């Protein structure tokens, strides 16, 4: 029972990361109908930047700031240099271009930092707090939950309450009409990619210390989990991605805790297939899945 409670809370923290990562995928999907397969690689690149900055300043927090800023910049660059030009021929091209970026980014990181795992410290302890002899939840898990919650609230305010958010929603739903009304849709898309990459970078910063450490491919499996989270919402629903992320996190925590961590990739695959086969449009999607 004690273990079950701990695994649940730990799974929620892990799930919060998947939720954030899935949310970033949803952001881009809504705006451009592209699944950004490069998001994991972009996030790892931001985390490496944080590693360097933390190494130089000795402060985790400066590293975190650098990762978020780096994510913003990388996301904007990818949209401006690649995605803006790749989307014209068909739906296949942006996906292939993103996969090319995965190879390129991971290779560049390997060249600069080497292909070994770099262990990364957490700003708070990862040992569980005990309440009346019960292992409950670690301070770091609380930090993760708090950080993701903060970002989600900020995004909700940005999208729901600001002019920029209104532009982004309009540009995603009706790009042509938005342009006729004076919205600079190109800039809005750049901003969307930048924001999504920054959220992805945050996810990487939060999850990498809890795994084997920093490595060019460290986010590959997280990508699949985050993708599964996004698919739960039919790729279109931010709420769906959050709920999906938490669900995936808890399930994986149980699988890892009771069956061993080697089983988690298999569990992710089974989860993804289950969601897709049961509800191809996602559990939260308001629109009918595209079917012939």
């Amino acid at each position, binding site marked *: 029972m004690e273990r079950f409670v701990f695994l649940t809370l730990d799974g929620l923290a892990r799930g919060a990361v998947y939720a954030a990562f899935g949310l970033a995928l949803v952001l881009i999907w809504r705006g451009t109908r592209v699944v950004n397969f490069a998001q994991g690689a972009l996030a790892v690149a931001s985390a490496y930047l944080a590693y360097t900055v933390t190494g130089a300043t000795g402060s985790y927090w400066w590293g975190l700031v650098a990762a978020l800023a780096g994510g913003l910049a990388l996301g904007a660059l990818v949209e401006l240099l690649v995605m803006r030009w790749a989307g014209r021929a068909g739906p296949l091209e942006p996906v292939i271009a993103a996969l090319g970026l995965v190879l390129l980014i991971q290779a560049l990181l390997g060249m600069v930092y080497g292909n070994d795992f770099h262990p990364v410290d957490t700003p708070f302890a990862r040992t569980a707090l005990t309440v009346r002899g019960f292992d409950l939840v670690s301070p770091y898990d609380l930090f993760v939950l708090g950080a993701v919650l903060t970002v989600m609230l900020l995004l909700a305010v940005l999208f729901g309450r600001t*002019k920029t958010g*209104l*532009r982004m*929603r*309009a540009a995603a*739903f*009706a790009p*042509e*009409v*938005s*342009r*006729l*009304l*004076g*919205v*600079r*849709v190109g800039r809005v898309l750049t901003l969307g990619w930048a924001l999504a990459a920054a959220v992805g970078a945050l996810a990487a910063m939060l999850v990498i210390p809890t795994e084997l450490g920093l490595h060019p491919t460290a986010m590959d499996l997280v990508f699949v989990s985050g993708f599964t989270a996004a698919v739960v919402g039919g790729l279109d629903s931010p709420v769906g991605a959050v709920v999906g992320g938490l669900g995936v996190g808890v399930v994986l925590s149980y699988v890892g805790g009771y069956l061993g961590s080697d089983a988690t990739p298999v569990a992710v695959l089974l989860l993804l297939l289950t969601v897709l086969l049961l509800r191809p449009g996602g559990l939260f999607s308001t629109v009918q899945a595209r079917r012939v």
Partner: protein
Amino acid sequence: MRPLLEVQGLTAGYGGVPVLDEVDLAIEPATICAVLGANGAGKTTLVRALSGLIRPAAGQVVYDGRNLDGVPVEDRVRLGLAHVPEGRAVVEQLTVDENLRLAVLWRRDRHVRRDLAEVYELFEPLARRRSHLGHQLSGGERQMLALGRALVAGPRLLLLDEPSLGLAPKVIAEILTLLARLRDTTGLTVLLVEQNVRSALSVADRSVVMALGRVTTADVSDATLRHAYLGF
């Protein structure tokens, strides 16, 4: 008086197939010009080329003495050129209020609030449905919203593509009366694309007929001409 809009030799189309074939057109300020013609005559393509949604293959569009070649869509509305596309392109996932505010996001002046209030005054039903989503509106309400959304940007030239499509005659009459009033009070210039010839002619100062991508005649006031080109 110098025309507000001058179109010369405009040729445009989709994927290399020309739909517009050397169109010439001039519209005086504070007038309503009706563009008539059958389906497929190129009316919508003309409007899309004017607002910059498609790039012309040849010819030029001069607006207020300025050549619009190379001016992107988003900037044309800033110059006072508003386009209400066919099918009342309300953003269905946004509320009425958000749809309206979307149109004034680019404005930096202090009168935005006043202009929004004016639109709500002009279209009372919209004020009552302020927080409803676009997809909950009726056809007439959508047309009001699309029109109000264009007007709130304070345009000098309004491009209206088939505003009467699918609307009740009473609503059509209201909209056209409003256009005539705005022309007389604010000096608004309107390019009105219509298939509904009778109602368009009732407010238009001038009409042109398009067929097969060309402006075939610049005067349809004569009943015989009307018969020849429109078949009734």
